[in-house]
């Protein structure tokens, strides 16, 4: 199961299309994703940073504070310039820039982490 947390529905659909061989669940804000995570522990999370309500960083902090969710690999997808940031302590495996990323990169991470 892959979680896609992205408040732009069209962008969320683009990410989901790149993961079409895997089960995905889309959330348009972090609160809904956090509420669902107890029922459906994802193998991988694609996370936008600028979200309505709590932002992606708040979500990362929340995940990192629980032993089980701290292990979930996270790919940040954002138009912010975060490429040089090291967020590995929050489980962030990669930071993809929305302006330059390719669907095949998303597919590759889905193949690597999702079952």
């Amino acid at each position, binding site marked *: 199961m892959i979680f896609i947390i992205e*408040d732009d529905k*069209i962008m969320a659909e683009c990410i989901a*299309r790149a993961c079409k061989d895997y089960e995905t669940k889309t959330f348009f804000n972090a609160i809904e994703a956090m509420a669902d995570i107890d029922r459906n522990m994802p193998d991988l999370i694609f996370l936008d940073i600028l979200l*309505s309500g709590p932002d992606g960083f708040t979500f990362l902090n929340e995940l990192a504070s629980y032993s089980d969710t701290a292990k979930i690999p996270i790919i940040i997808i954002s138009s912010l310039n975060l490429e040089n940031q090291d967020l590995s302590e929050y489980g962030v495996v990669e930071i993809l820039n929305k*302006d330059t990323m390719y669907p095949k990169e998303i597919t590759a991470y889905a193949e690597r982490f999702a079952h």
Partner: protein
Amino acid sequence: MESEVSSILIAAHELKAPMSLIRQLALSLDTENQDSNAYVRSQIIDVSERAIKQVNDLTKIAHLEDGLFKMEPVSVRGVCDGVVSELIHLFRFNHRDLNIRYTNQSKLVIANTELLHSVVYNFCLNAMHYSDQETFSELTVQDHNGKVRVGVRDFGPALPMDVWRELKRGWIEKPVSIAMRPGSSGLGLYIASMFSKYMNAEVGAVRHRDGTSFFVELPVSKQASLFE
């Protein structure tokens, strides 16, 4: 000068978002079947048309000083109906709805049709971005202290304090910090503000616990009496 550069940067950031989206959509065409391609193509058209409209509005701001926009009696409900029919598809695509409630007795206002359309359009688009999913925004037209008030109410997170302070200072004079709201620099509100000023209309906002109303108050056209 510094503030102008900052405004340009913020506007550029907002206009970059649809371009990124169009790029992603175009890239996803490669691997899709024909049915899906048709859907993606329609999204490319929708996103690009909204971006073009925003660029056109920004261009219009530059021409406001030239006085090219004629003020005339305008059917306010007609303009609002036009905006609703243009945006209802987008609201529903995003799991939201846009309701209308007209109670105004004065049918005509003094405005410029094109600019008023943009003001209402930007208010509605702002409401859609701010609303929670499965909620509706409400477009109202009502008589208010001898004027006609066109308001758009959203139901979502309360307006951030920095934006509220900006409004209290006298509305939005420039696109405000991109951090104010994801996916928006307040460019739409800035455009609405500039166009309303040109039309000598008053703009304002009401902060609710569960959302915000933005409104513009327009002078009633004397010509209205001929139709009533």
